[in-house]
């Protein structure tokens, strides 16, 4: 299953599952929940944080966190 961290710039996906134990609550409240679609807007250089649009919110998270979110790629 692809992870959110696999998303490339401009690509979209749909969140399938989040390992809720390790994910900060704040991220869930921003709408990072199963079923919502997500788009990668920008990737900071040197494997830095990623900048996402999810559920109408714009949020930046580190790659480590993105690895905990499973997605389904969409066109």
């Amino acid at each position, binding site marked *: 299953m692809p992870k959110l961290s696999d998303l490339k710039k401009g690509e979209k996906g749909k969140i399938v599952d989040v390992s809720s134990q390790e994910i*900060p*609550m*704040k*991220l869930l409240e921003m709408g990072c929940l199963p079923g919502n679609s997500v788009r990668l807007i920008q990737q900071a250089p040197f494997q830095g944080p990623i900048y996402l649009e999810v559920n109408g919110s714009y949020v930046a998270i580190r790659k480590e966190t993105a690895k905990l979110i499973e997605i389904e790629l969409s066109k």
Partner: protein
Amino acid sequence: MELNIQNILVVTSLILAIIFLVKKFSPKKTKGNCLNKDCGCS
């Protein structure tokens, strides 16, 4: 130092200044909230 109004004023301001500084920099009791832990999102 003779006793005149100006000298009295000077001594008064000196005392006020010292009281202010002592009060300002004496440690106060504080209540802690976020102890040694990751207190951001969890």
